[in-house]
């Protein structure tokens, strides 16, 4: 790891000002940033330490949830109100990383963790347009079992690794961002960018912007939610495929369905065609399976990851069956 200077930000304004310096980065939990710095994927000259800022509170009530960016994953996951109102968030958090990492990592940092693509994290011989724009993509013709089947481009097929972001996508949550020109709120489904020709640009954040909070709307009447994560081992592993579902039922019929998948897309991926197939439908196993089949629409498999398409359809069907049971 290259050396850097470390500065405490006493106030939000001080943090934003410090971030305007060249080669500066914010550090919150540091669980991903320090890995990237050890591997010299990231080489910031200055770290701006956020941990003194008053962004570590959250409130959950009838008008929704406001979760400060510096809330620890473990503190949020353990909250009884969160588990009751937003099971999909609690389940996504508890399926993330390890207990130690969850004690360190923050909600805001979780949304900005970088892809686990091995070529992105290998500064040796691998080409990666995300790490070094214009250098090529070793994954497209390489070992791509873990890569995306949705949202990829000829420049990048890396998946977004966050479980939390997939849950938030299904809940139509929003990200509160503070920049040098004030506060703005960005819907999570507009927050992430597909790679296109510029995979180094992953979100709509501008240099020096800071996530201050996550805003989650209140669950609709009778809404249930659930997160299903499938991985290569039972725990402490990133998703091969995950499904976040939020469903409201009316008399055995689906009033509203919002579904997002993880591990398969270059960003947390909503499935509007599956949602449309479910809207107004009676809950039967056939309806759920047929609706889940729409998840494959637009999917583009590569040499090693075609299995993800069928796995995604089945994960969505199973998550729907669980949440409507």
């Amino acid at each position: 790891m290259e050396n850097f200077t470390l500065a405490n930000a006493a106030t939000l304004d001080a943090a934003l000002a410090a971030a305007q310096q060249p080669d500066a980065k914010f550090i919150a939990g540091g669980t991903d940033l320090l890995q990237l710095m050890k591997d010299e994927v990231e080489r910031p000259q200055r770290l701006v330490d956020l941990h003194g800022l008053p962004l570590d509170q959250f409130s959950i009530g009838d008008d929704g949830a406001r979760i400060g960016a510096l809330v620890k994953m473990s503190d949020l996951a353990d909250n009884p109100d969160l588990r009751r109102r937003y099971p999909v968030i609690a389940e996504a958090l508890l399926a993330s990383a390890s207990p130690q990492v969850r004690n360190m990592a923050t909600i805001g940092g979780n949304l900005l963790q970088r892809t686990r693509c091995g070529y992105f994290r290998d500064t040796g011989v691998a080409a990666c347009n995300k790490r070094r724009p214009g250098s090529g993509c070793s994954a497209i013709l390489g070992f791509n079992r873990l890569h995306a089947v949705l949202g990829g481009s000829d420049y990048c097929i890396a998946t977004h690794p966050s479980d939390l972001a997939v849950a938030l996508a299904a809940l139509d949550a929003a990200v509160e961002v503070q920049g040098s020109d004030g506060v703005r709120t960005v819907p999570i489904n507009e927050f992430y960018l597909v790679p296109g020709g510029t995979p180094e640009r992953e979100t709509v954040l501008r240099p020096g912007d800071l996530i201050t909070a996550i805003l989650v709307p209140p669950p609709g009447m009778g809404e249930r939610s659930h997160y299903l994560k499938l991985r290569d081992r039972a725990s402490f592993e990133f998703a091969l495929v995950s499904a976040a579902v939020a469903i409201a039922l009316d008399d055995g019929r689906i009033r509203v369905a919002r579904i997002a998948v993880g591990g398969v897309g270059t960003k947390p991926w909503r499935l509007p065609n599956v949602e449309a197939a479910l809207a107004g439908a009676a809950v039967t196993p056939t309806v759920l399976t047929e609706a889940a089949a729409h998840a494959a629409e637009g999917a583009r498999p590569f040499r090693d990851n075609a299995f993800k398409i069928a796995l995604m359809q089945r994960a969505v069907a199973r998550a729907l069956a669980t949440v409507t049971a």
Partner: protein
Amino acid sequence: MNEFEVSRRRFIGASAAAGGLAAATAKTAHAAAQTSAAPVRTPEMVDVTLEVNGRRHPLSIEPRTTLLDALREELRLSGTKKGCDRGSCGACTVHVDGARVLSCLTLAARCEGKAVTTIEGLAAEGELHPMQAAFLARDGLQCGYCTPGQIMSAIALVEEGRAVSDDAIREWMSGNICRCGAYPHILAAIKDVAGSGSRS
């Protein structure tokens, strides 16, 4: 002041113009510091006082020093192990303010004012912590490299109230990898402590 310094000063004094004397003297002091055993202080160094196992240690370290490296290299507390150094194996698990964390992904400079507990801080008055004793009794190790991290995690797990079933213990121990595969014995040790209601 020894004879060498005196003669060196005389030499400098004799050969330098009055205006250049101060700078030349500073250069001499710098040269003396470099030949001594004291570490060279670079501008990037930061001062931090680490409180480890109840003892306070004032340190001057580079900002990039992880808590793991500070414990092992600066404080010579080598019980905390470096496995992957990337947060994947759990061998470096310590407690910071009572919570289990990965010392390899913690910057030591950010630990000012926090209470760090390592494997060396568990045994009270020479008596093993019950979790240490249970790992011995149940043979919860083979090579032993992951064991300090396993024990720090296991103690936290019991204190967090997660030891409600075998599956729950396995899930909440999943951040600690054992290459030798001692998992069944580790599980047995944790169940012994969780079930006994003893200090944990």
